């Protein structure tokens, strides 16, 4: 299907090229509008097709956003993840979202949720080793007062945010782990919305990965 979708987009470009060509060659306005109408109908068919069938053919997108019903318990499948790093003293720390750049945090988490369980143990370890190294490099940069990530290297404070906003937890030096990070842990989290509203600590955590393994 991926190749069919590529052909759909190529068709859009090709139909547009015919419109461009007709600008130079058409004898009348009426002739030219025939090609333009074909281009419009093709573009509308693809874009409405993607929306109505809810099948992406990017850049023709279904635009599904928060379409589900949110229940009183946080979705179990897939359960939200929390990636934490453990320092040399055994203390767990949340990791600033900018530490993962060039990966956007929500893309990394979605990948961890969907793909990491499909890997063998050695491959999982390789991934977590890479992430632990990235977390440590970013921690060192934050401690040195340098930018934690790379996205703001050109535009500084005018950098476009990602789709989700994330707190910049390592913006203040005091919040940055002072000890090197020696282990990465990934938890799945489960909670009831009303219970956690009353008590923010009311979360059940299940450790699903750690690197290095004990």
């Amino acid at each position, binding site marked *: 299907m991926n190749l069919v979708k*590529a052909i759909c987009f190529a068709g*859009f470009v090709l139909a547009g090229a015919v419109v*461009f060509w007709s600008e130079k060659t058409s004898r009348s306005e009426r002739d030219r509008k025939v090609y333009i109408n074909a281009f419009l109908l093709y573009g*509308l068919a693809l874009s409405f097709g993607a929306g109505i069938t*809810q099948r992406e053919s990017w850049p023709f997108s*279904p635009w599904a956003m928060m*379409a589900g019903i949110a229940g009183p318990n946080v979705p179990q499948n897939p359960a939200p993840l929390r990636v934490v790093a453990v320092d040399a003293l055994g203390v767990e720390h949340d990791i600033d979202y900018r530490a993962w750049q060039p990966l956007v945090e929500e893309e990394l988490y979605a990948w961890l949720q969907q793909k990491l369980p499909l890997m063998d143990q050695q491959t999982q370890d390789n991934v977590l080793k890479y992430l632990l190294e990235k977390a440590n490099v970013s921690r060192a940069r934050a401690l040195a007062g340098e930018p934690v990530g790379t996205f703001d290297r050109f535009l500084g404070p005018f950098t476009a945010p990602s789709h989700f*906003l994330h707190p910049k937890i390592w913006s203040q030096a005091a919040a940055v782990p002072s000890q090197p990070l020696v282990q990465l842990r990934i938890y799945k989290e489960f909670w009831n919305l009303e219970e956690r509203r009353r008590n923010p600590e009311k979360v059940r955590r299940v450790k699903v990965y750690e690197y290095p393994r004990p």
Partner: protein
Amino acid sequence: MNNNWTQRMARGWNKLWFSPEPARNLAAARIVFSAHALWILMSRDLPAISGLPHEFWIFVPRTALWRYLIFPGHPRGEEFLQGLAVLALLGALTGFYPRLSCLVSGLLLYHLAPLETIIWTTNPYVRGFTITVLALVTLSFSPCGDAFCLFGRRRVGSKTNPSWVYSWPLRLIQVFLCQVYLFSGYVKLSSSGLAWISADNLHNWLLYISQVDQVSVYKSFGLWIADHPAVCLLVAVGTIALELGFIAVIFWKGSRIWLIPLAILFHMGILFSMNLTFLNLPQLLVFADWEALFTRLKLTQPAPI
């Protein structure tokens, strides 16, 4: 009778797509989309994704890589392509070979944008480039360089005259933008039914987002709404009404005066209550009547070089 209906359809179609539009409105769309694309592109590091370790690419289908012509392990090559995209976008922005620049940047963004999500999905929507790719490609096949060009040749004398040639590309881009709202409303109703429009549903969504602390920057506004069932219901009804009704800006220009500000307010509300950004927001500028604005301000273009 049937013939009459067909004629009315044809008249409606022509009115929608070929009503005369000033060149400046189309040229403004070129500037809006190229500036916006530059903003997003310079706020990411897409070439570096190509350099991610092999493990991240194991589950990416080979067909997905061919679809976007992505070949992992070549960050330098991607840097070169990104540089080319930046130059093309600057060309589109300033009017340097505007049509060629729009085409090159549109095609390069079709390749670069999916890098952001390719490791887990081939659909990089809501990341800022979806409408941009369609818009830049559409603009490249239209006379989008007949106004607001710092360089090159323009159609002297015709540049401020409204014409149908400036209408259809702008309208198509506007339709693509409206589909964001239309399909977003449609999928809520088609997948969840009327149950989506309930105070409980919105209450739970707001609580959920405020409790995922990795994405929780603003909390108090969302929790305030969650605490008021009547406000939750009003917001849920308003969301569906706006999403399904926004398409009116295409057929009834007068509605833009209140629907566009309402949409901006809607996105600001989502930002501060759910911590979700809508990166396409600046693209709503393509609904403005730039010609009228220029006429009102009595601004004139410099004489052609």
